[in-house]
C-alpha cells in the first residue's frame, strides 16, 4: 500500500495541495483525475519525492520516503518508472541511448544484453526504426511512446504516467492505451496515471483518485465512482 498522509505543497504563496491523504493499493492501476492546474502533476511528483512537500508523509510498503537520505532516495528511484507530461527525453541522446541510459549506468548488464532489451522495448512501443533518431526528430506521439519505453526498460515495480495520451493523435493514444492495458494485465506492477482521459479510466482503472481545488474529493475503487462526481469534477466555476 502507498500511504499518503496530510501532504501539503505550495509554490511561493500558492497552495497546490492542502493536507491531502490517500491510500493507493499496490499491484493495481490507479487513475488520478482532475481539472488542469489542480495539482495532479504535483501530486504525482510528490508521491515519489521528486518534489518535496511542505508537510506530511508518504509511505511505500511502510517506509517513509520523505525521510530517506539522498542515496536511499536514488536507490528507491531505481524501482520507479516515470513518464513525464512533455516526455522529457534527454535531447542530446538518441532514442536508443535514452532507453539504455539507466541500464548502462545503473546495472551490471552486458552491452549486448542492454542493446537487445532496448530493441525489444522499441518494438513493444512500435518504434523499431526510430532508435537512432534524436528526440527533436520525433512527433509528440512518438516521444510519448519512447518515454513509456524508457520507463519500462527498467522493468520497474512502480510506474507513474503523467498525461500519457494528452496532446497526441488517436492512433498514438490508442497504442499507449493498449500498452497500459497490457501492463495492467500483468498484475505485478503498481501503475499510477494522471489523466483527463475518462474513457481510458473507465476501461483500465482499478482505483481512482479525484483531485480538485487542492483536495482529494474521492479515493476508492473505480467501480464505486458515480457519473455525477465525474461531471462535477470538470464543471467550471
Amino acid at each position, binding site marked *: 500500500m502507498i500511504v499518503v498522509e496530510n501532504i501539503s505543497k505550495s509554490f511561493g504563496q500558492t497552495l497546490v495541495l492542502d493536507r491531502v491523504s490517500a491510500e493507493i493499493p499496490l499491484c493495481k492501476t490507479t487513475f488520478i483525475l482532475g481539472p488542469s*492546474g489542480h495539482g495532479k502533476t504535483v501530486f504525482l511528483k510528490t508521491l515519489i519525492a521528486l518534489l518535496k512537500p511542505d508537510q506530511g508523509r508518504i509511505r511505500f510498503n511502510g517506509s517513509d520516503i520523505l525521510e530517506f537520505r539522498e542515496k536511499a532516495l*536514488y536507490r528507491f528511484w531505481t524501482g520507479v518508472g516515470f513518464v*513525464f507530461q512533455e516526455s522529457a527525453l534527454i535531447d542530446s541522446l538518441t532514442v536508443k541511448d535514452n532507453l539504455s541510459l539507466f541500464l548502462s549506468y545503473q546495472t551490471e548488464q552486458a552491452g549486448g544484453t542492454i542493446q537487445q532489451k532496448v530493441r525489444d522495448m522499441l518494438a513493444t512501443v512500435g518504434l523499431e526504426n526510430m532508435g537512432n533518431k534524436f528526440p527533436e526528430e520525433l512527433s509528440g506521439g512518438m516521444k510519448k511512446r519512447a518515454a513509456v519505453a524508457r520507463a519500462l526498460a*527498467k522493468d520497474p515495480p512502480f510506474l507513474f504516467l503523467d498525461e500519457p495520451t494528452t496532446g497526441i493523435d488517436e492512433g498514438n493514444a490508442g497504442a499507449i492505451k493498449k500498452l497500459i492495458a497490457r501492463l495492467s494485465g500483468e498484475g505485478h506492477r503498481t501503475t499510477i496515471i494522471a489523466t483527463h482521459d475518462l474513457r481510458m479510466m473507465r476501461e483500465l482503472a482499478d482505483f481512482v483518485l479525484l483531485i480538485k*481545488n487542492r483536495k482529494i474529493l474521492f479515493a476508492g475503487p473505480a467501480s464505486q465512482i458515480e457519473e455525477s462526481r465525474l461531471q462535477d469534477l470538470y464543471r467550471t466555476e
Partner: protein
Amino acid sequence: MRGTHFSPAVDEAPPNRLRTFFATFYELFQQLLDFIKNIPEIPKYWPETSKQLHKHISETLPLGLFIACFVGIGATLQANAHNLIWINRPFIVNLMFKFGIIDLYPFILGLVLAGKIGSSVAAEIGSMQITEQIDALKTMSIHPVGYLGWPRVIASMIMFPLTTIFSDICALISMALISLHGSAWVSYSEFVAGLKMDFHPWFLIIQMVIKPALFGFIICFVGYFFGSRSRKGSKGVGQASIQSAVVSALTIIILNYLIGELSN
C-alpha cells in the same frame, strides 16, 4: 471556492536584493557540497567527460589559438611602440613574455570562455531543467551532478590548461616572428636572453596549469549552478546564461588578483 490555477513561475514575492544575494551564496555553497559528495561518481560517467573533452577540442582550442596569436602580436607591437632607449631590450622581451603572455593570456581566455562556455553550460542545463530532463535523470537514479555537472567541469579543468599551454606557445611564436622578422626591433640573442631572465618553472606551472584549471572549474561550476536553478521558461534560461557569464567573469577577475598576490 475558485479553482487554484497555480503557476510556480510567476507566484513569487518581490525580490529583496540582499536576501537574494545571501540565499544565492548559500545555494552556491550547497551546490559545491553536492559536487564534493559526487566525486566518487566521476569515473562512472567518464564517457560523458570524454564527449565534453571532444566538444572542447573542437570549440575552445581554435578560439584559444586565435586569441593567443593576436595577444602575442599585440603585446609585441605595443612594447615596440613604447620601446624606450634606456631600458634594455631583453628586459622588455621578458616583460612581454611574462606579463603579456604567461600572466595576461589565461586571464583573457578565462573572460572570453566565461562568456562562451559558461553561458552555454548554463543555457544547456537550464533548458534541461525547465523541460524536466533533469527530473527524468533522477527517476533513472542518475545524479545530475555526476552525469551532467562533473563531466563538464572535469573537461574544462583538463582543456583550459591544455589550451593555455598550446596558446602560449602560439603567442610566443607570433611574438618571436614579429619581434625578430616583422619589426626586427630585437636580435635573436636579446630575445632568448629576455625569455630566460629570472625564469622560475613554478611561475609557469601556476600561470599555465593551476590558474587555467581553476578558471575552468569556476566557469563550468557557476554555469551548472545557474542553469540548474533556472525557472520561468526561456526568459529564465536567458537570465541564467547572463548571470553565469557575469558571476564567473567577476570571480575570475578576483581570483586572478588573488593568485597574483599569492605568487608574489
